């Protein structure tokens, strides 16, 4: 199930913007065994970025410790109506996905 859906919500506050993003990913630790007793290979999101109007504001390195179908939320300084927010991830297999929205 590579690059399933992503869902983002961003709300404008007084001088800040709250971004919450939900993403579909198996986040395999490499420790789990399948029904045949074989190890399920590691498969997890390594890198997560948030951009506001093309400018990088969050660049996160994450690991297997994060759960399946993770949710992330960030509070960004500032923000104005119409600002474009982009969230993207890349996993250890080189798969990636992204979503974007304009602040309303």
């Amino acid at each position, binding site marked *: 199930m590579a690059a399933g*859906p992503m869902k983002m919500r961003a709300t404008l506050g007084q001088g800040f913007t709250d971004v919450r993003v939900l993403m*579909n990913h198996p986040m395999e630790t490499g420790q789990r065994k399948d029904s045949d007793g074989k190890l399920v290979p590691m498969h997890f999101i390594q890198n997560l970025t948030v951009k506001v109007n093309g400018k990088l504001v969050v660049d996160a390195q994450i690991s297997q410790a994060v759960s*399946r179908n993770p*949710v992330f939320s960030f509070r960004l300084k500032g923000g104005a109506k119409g600002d474009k927010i982009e969230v993207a991830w890349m996993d250890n297999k080189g798969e990636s996905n992204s979503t974007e929205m304009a602040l309303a």
Partner: protein
Amino acid sequence: MRAAFLAAAIVFTGAASAQDAGKEIQRYRDMVAEGSPAELFELEGETLWNKPQGPKNVSLERCDLGKGPGVLKGAYAALPRYFKDVDRVMDLETRLLHCMTVLQGRTLEDATKRVFGNADQPSEMESLSAYVAAQSRGMKMAPGVSHPKEKQSIELGRALYFHRVGAWDFSCATCHGDEGKRIRMQELPVLYKPQGARATAASWPAYRVSTSSFVTLQWRMNDCFRQMRTPEPNFGSETTVALIHFITATGAGATYNGPGNKR
């Protein structure tokens, strides 16, 4: 005197910690609900709803869930109900199955091959249920209760709820018959009374955190029968539909707030 005082103190701390645990579980549930992966299943379900499939290579967009072909708004809140075209009562999943066979031309065998998924591979039925149910959010649950077949189905469901079966002589009411019962930390709702049934009607189908999967009411019935050690019921059988109908009708009037979250 001193012993009595000690005993009272122990009873008191026992009650307090059970209450704290309940509060903590509620806090955990609220946190999960904030960013529920159920939404991902809704998105996946939308894709599947619009995807042409089966020998006829058509999508489910013309599927009539009771409000007319392709009408999704409020459709889930009015289910289960009687469908004239098949002359029987159907719940959401049974109706979806009907559309898969009639509209898409799939065989019953093909369409029910994998109705219950797992974390690695969710089933088509689960994602579709999430998508359809979500279109009734904020609406009052009002399953069909007036047609003679609907009345019959609810009565069958009520009878089945209390009917003891299987090697362990269990009925639904064995676990879901008294207030305040639980299995481990999971409270068991009393589903033949409106209060317990409303919370159930308002939140199923749901994302189940402990298995990272999306679960439906047909799955819940199936798994309860497994726990009661009966033979496995057929998917969409009269039995499972009647039980779902009885529980939903008992919980009628609840505002639908799903797809929800289960532990």
